């Protein structure tokens, strides 16, 4: 032991732990980076949303809440938001239920289980843009297998214009989205189910509990934290849905499949209404942050 060591031995803590300033100094770079990456773009968007930046203008004039007023009065925004929420409300439960059923199916050992799991997960590793293109080809009225299969079933050639007719375009997007992202739910829930306490399950079985009772009383509570996070991630993804819609319909026909992300892209990067788009970004960011915080709180994850 040297003369310098007594402090360390005395407290049993690192030498810097007792010095508040030093601690802050260590944390400061990380906080700075987080603020720079996370908060600065948001604050910048807030500032831009109060201006009239558009086109290639390098500086704007302050126009107060004009962009927010315009946003509230813009029926196209609300329609796009409605469509996004509808898609979320239909796709999310479908992906969850299908993913869960598949995960439960693969809980027991089956022939070629690993191969099938790998095949099922495949769509989730494809780029969403590529997946959208694949589905555009699959749903092609002339060469796509989808219409041909329906034709075989109905017994006569059938021309369904999946990406042209408004009532079909929504389903086309839904099919593509569920196909690609059900595997994400599947793989997460497969891992969660594998960690359910086997002893509890065996005990319930010995006690004569039925399958549904076991599922709702033991399995579901056990996987709930993981399931909650998976649902949250997918809900956020679905709210931001862009790629599949862009590749399949570009928001058309008309605006019939325009989601909020498509709307933002068109307004921000095709029409160059920079400040108007920034106002929408700010509102959505606030709403989504509140929703996520509430969800995490409810799931007791962010304690």
């Amino acid at each position, binding site marked *: 032991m040297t003369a310098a060591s007594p402090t360390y031995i005395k407290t049993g803590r690192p030498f810097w732990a007792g010095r508040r300033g030093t601690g802050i100094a260590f944390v400061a770079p990380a906080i700075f980076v987080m603020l720079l990456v996370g908060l600065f773009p948001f604050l910048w968007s807030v500032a831009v949303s109060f201006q009239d930046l558009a*086109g*290639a*203008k*390098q500086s704007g004039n302050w126009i107060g809440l004009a962009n927010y007023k315009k946003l509230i009065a813009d029926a*196209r925004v609300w329609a796009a938001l409605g469509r996004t929420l509808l898609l979320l409300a239909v796709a999310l439960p479908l992906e969850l239920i299908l993913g869960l059923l598949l995960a439960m199916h693969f809980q027991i050992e089956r022939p070629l289980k690993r191969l099938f799991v790998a095949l099922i997960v495949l769509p989730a590793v494809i780029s969403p843009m590529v997946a959208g293109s694949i589905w555009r080809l699959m749903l*092609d*009225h*002339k060469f796509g297998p989808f219409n041909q299969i329906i034709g075989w079933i109905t017994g006569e050639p059938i*021309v369904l*214009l999946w*990406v*042209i*007719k*408004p009532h079909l*375009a929504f389903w086309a997007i839904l099919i593509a989205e569920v196909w690609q992202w059900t595997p994400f739910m599947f793989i997460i829930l497969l891992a969660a189910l594998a960690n359910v306490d086997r002893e509890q399950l065996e005990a319930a079985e010995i006690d004569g509990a039925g399958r549904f009772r076991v599922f709702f009383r033991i399995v579901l509570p056990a996987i709930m934290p993981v399931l909650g996070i998976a649902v949250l991630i997918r809900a956020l993804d679905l709210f931001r849905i862009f790629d599949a819609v862009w590749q399949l319909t570009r*928001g*058309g*026909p*008309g*605006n*019939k499949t325009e989601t909020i992300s498509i709307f933002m892209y*068109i307004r921000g*990067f*095709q*029409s*160059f*209404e920079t400040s108007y788009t920034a106002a929408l970004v700010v509102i959505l960011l606030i709403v989504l942050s509140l929703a996520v915080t509430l969800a995490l709180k409810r799931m007791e994850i962010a304690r």
Partner: protein
Amino acid sequence: MIRNLLFTAAFLGLAATAPALAQEDAAATAIAAAKQFSGSSITVVAEAGLQALLDTQYSGPEWEQLTGIKVKVVELPNEEIYPKTILEKQAGTGGYDVLLISPALLADMVNNGAAEPLDDFVKKYGADKEFDDVNPAFKDWMSYNGKTYGLVVDGDVLVTYYRKDLFEDPENQKAFKEKYSYDLAAPKTYKEFGDIACFLTEKYQPKIYGAGVINTGYTHFFFSERFRAHGGKFFDQETMKATVNSEAGVKALTEMVEQNKCMSPGIETWGFAENLSALNAGEIAMTISWPPLGRWTQGVNIEDKALSWVPKTVVADKIGYAINPGGHPQLASGFLSGVSPDSKNKEAAYLYAQWMHSKSQSLKNVMRPVGLRDPFRISHYESPEYQNLWGGAKDYLKVLKDGAAAGYADLSVIDTFKYQDSMSRAVNAAIGGEDPQTALNGMAAEWDQITESVGADKQRDAYKVWAAKPTAYRE
């Protein structure tokens, strides 16, 4: 004696070179001047796909060989060219040197400071000496508010292509006349276009359908032409309220939707490629599309690997060409070559644009298998080389020339891109099944919003300038 000989030799030498100097064209001037930038490089914007192959396979390497300037090509999908150019301007990176400008969007490009005035370069390098050769319909594209911002490199005009063998068939002619009380010939009105489509479909389907059209992408061009053919005006010049949902609009859009019923199943999904493929494969009897189809249906200059997707033509020598129904085809898009204000090599960029625009080089370009560059100079229409490419080339070039001379210009005001986008969405909604009047009402409401955001007075000024052009409404 020796002095006399030397003098005579010098005189003869001058006499021999003088005509060559006098005839030195804009291409030669551009090449000679560009050599001072040898070793540098320029970045050229090109439309992704076949257009870009012109720069990557032909013009780029040739320019480098002639001048020592390397050409880098940035390929952008058609609908991304304008947004990406503006984004580059916003970022101020100088990432692009030579721009590709849709003439209808030139006003927006200039208002956003995204296009460099070229007048000094034009004067310095003599491009204007060849301006008289540019078809007047396209010459107008190059300037805005009295300044030149782009040089035409592609002269687009929509053309009607029809199967002469089917139209001239005596049996068809007799049956058609009996049914419709007029002769079966290239349609003079859009009603006739629909009649012919239905007549031939009834007779030949499912092997051949009466007509094919482009229903996805670029639909605003097709609607704009029909709308004006029915007497439509885009705005009320006094109030600047949109009048696209007028009777003319409803008539034009209803007609488009109704005529689809006499075409191939799935016609609603057809784009440029599907339409071309069907025409080449002999599956449709008539269509309206852009110029390269004349060469492609004939199988001329399409041996390039890049065109391997185009079905081998079975309709060579069977295709007739006509000016679109109504007599005023849309001068749909076209392209100007411009220079970015942020370019670090503006002069070299300009010289490439001048070379591509020049009489001699542009003739080569409009005959290339790839590139989709279409005739825009009087000398192109009159070129013996082009006229002899195939038997019907002379007729084809005449239709292009006359069509352009009588054509409707694309609407060009402030924020044109937004109006075009809104129009395309409304047309697509109607094609998808929405009631045409409802679709047009929605479009008119969007147009009014756009006008309001620009400022009605400001937009009126821009619209007045455009509407005063003879190509606007052809009255």
